[in-house]
């Protein structure tokens, strides 16, 4: 069992849902990334998605684009992102880290080399936005060989056949993109999302996280009522962007802790759902 799987097992036993915050590595400065990661854990993060900056983030909205640009302006490379994970691991051996980014920096390093280095640094999963399952088969195999979970996206427009195709490759969790558009778009439609999740769980047997458009504790609570994990990204990046660097950790901690409380209140009330087949 991978670390990510064991997190979901534990949460399920507790009747709770996973909170997965996202930040971009190196934003606003590489020196703040490790403190921010620890702050996220203190605020109640179960898993953290760490964005790898890329010059052409085609699937991201303006907020995460700007985070990527700030990190690139500081010269942050994939190699440095791995070093940041390694420093985080000095004080935290528990909280899974999922790298989220685009194919080119990984292919530039070499997929095998990357998988080995990511495993050694303490990474637990990898989500490559522009590897849909048909282009990600070899990649998923290599990740599995290095005990890394390949995380795939599914969308409201994904057919049943594609859901099964993703289920055959994915482990850890599946990231369900809750709406049409890019990251940081308008609020999501909880009822529409709720209608799709049982189908995805049934076809894949993997926990389902929902992201895109989750901006506050109330929405996070609603999503926690139907999904196995809640992903929050752009809203956190906005908090970092609007804070003085030395205030960012405290601001992010307060925001994420508020979302955590909202989620836990909701799942206590509902008693949770199950992802296991």
């Amino acid at each position, binding site marked *: 069992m991978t670390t990510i799987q064991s997190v979901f097992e534990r949460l399920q036993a507790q009747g709770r849902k996973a909170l997965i915050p996202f930040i971009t590595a190196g934003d606003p400065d590489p020196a703040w990334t490790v403190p921010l990661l620890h702050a996220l854990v203190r605020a109640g993060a179960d898993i953290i998605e760490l964005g790898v900056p*890329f*010059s*052409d*983030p*085609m*699937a991201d*909205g*303006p907020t995460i*684009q700007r985070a990527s*640009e700030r990190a*690139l302006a500081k010269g942050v*490379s*994939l*190699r440095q992102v791995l070093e940041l994970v390694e420093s985080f691991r000095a004080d935290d051996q528990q909280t899974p880290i999922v790298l989220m980014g*685009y*194919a*080119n*920096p*990984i*292919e*530039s*390093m070499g997929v095998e080399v990357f998988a080995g280095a990511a495993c050694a640094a303490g990474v637990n999963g990898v989500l490559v*936005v*522009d*590897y*849909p399952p*048909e*282009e990600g088969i070899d990649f998923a195999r290599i990740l599995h060989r290095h005990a890394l979970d390949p995380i*795939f*996206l*599914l*969308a409201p*427009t*994904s*057919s049943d056949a*594609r859901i099964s195709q993703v289920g055959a490759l994915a482990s850890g969790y599946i990231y369900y*993109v809750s709406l*049409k*558009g*890019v990251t940081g*778009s308008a609020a999501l439609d909880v009822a529409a999302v709720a209608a799709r999740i049982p189908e995805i769980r049934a076809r894949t047997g993997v926990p389902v996280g929902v992201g895109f458009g989750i901006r506050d504790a109330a929405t996070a609570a609603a999503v926690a009522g139907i999904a196995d994990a809640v992903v929050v990204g752009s809203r956190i990046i906005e908090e970092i962007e609007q804070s003085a660097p030395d205030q960012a950790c405290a601001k992010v901690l307060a925001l994420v802790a508020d979302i955590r409380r909202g989620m836990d209140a909701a799942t206590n009330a509902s008693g949770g759902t199950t992802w296991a087949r």
Partner: protein
Amino acid sequence: MNDYDLPDARGHFGPYGGVFVAETLIAALDELKEAYAAAQRDPQFVAEFNDELKHYVGRPSPVYHARRWSEALGGAQIYLKREDLNHTGAHKINNCIGQALLARRMQKPRVIAETGAGQHGVATATVAARYGMECVVYMGSEDIRRQAANVYRMKLLGAVVVPVESGSRTLKDALNEAMRDWVTNVSDTFYIIGTVAGPHPYPMMVRDFQSIIGRESIVQMQEQCGRQPDAVIACVGGGSNAMGIFYPYIPVAGVRLIGVEAAGEGIATGQHAASLTAGRPGVLHGNRTYLLQDENGQITETHSISAGLDYPGVGPEHAWLKDSGRAEYVSISDAEALQAFHDLCRLEGIIPALESSHALAYATRLAPTLAKEQILLVNLSGRGDKDMHTVADQSGITF
């Protein structure tokens, strides 16, 4: 290469091409793939496309023997495929007609496009006006500043031009932004990509629509010369005019295919846009191809005097033609392209686009090394009216 039938069903040209996009775009690309396949089989669609090319674009474009220029170079005979004579002044319109007809067939009332220099934006705005569609063109704010006349042309044609402020604020960022629009508005919007790049089926579809250039050339060369040329030469940015003229020639033995990239201020200076000459394979804009990138896999900014060649990637079929050896790729500097521009103006009374001037410049290098009976066919992909300011600037002239 007689049995050339790429791409495969999933859009691969050998290791290149493919569908490297987020899951959110997959359904839209599948829908497009099916609609395009059905349209290709529909005689009515094909007939309407051909009719529009004839009566609206003005096809076939002539093949012209540049006698004085050939004589001055003292070697091979140079023929020009006159895509500059098309409506809107370049080859771009061929593809825009095809995709707009497809958009109409798919009942998408809104079209979007990316543009660098503005040529593809103008061609898209033109067909949107022609077919009564809403049109939004994404353009880097840096390019908007440099190409004010084309921005105005698009607005005259009824398009909304949206400035893109992210990244390097140029063509690649405009493409990112158009993709973001498409993923958000996919139910009523058709994305008209301007070159043979992007996720499958775009590289194949744009090539097919542009291949009218090569199909006409094969007929016209036979009529005028009784044979096919020894080499076909075309400039390559994304590579749509080159794919258009190369594709029908791939199975024709004895015809060299030569793509000319922008060497800018020289390959060694790093100020260029020559992805096939100086790049390495990677993934950008939905496909795997040769890219200009740094050691960490970040896409680098490019330079060329011609905005239409100023792109850090290249169509995946060119990547395959390079690796397979069927086509050769060379590069021409800003200065060499400018020289060819002036030569064609003075010797033939034709003002070529700076993009096309790269292909012309390579012909000036090659022709003198060949015998007088040999034949070069150069794709004159566009006219140079849009480049007046750039060329005048180079000569220290202000209007």
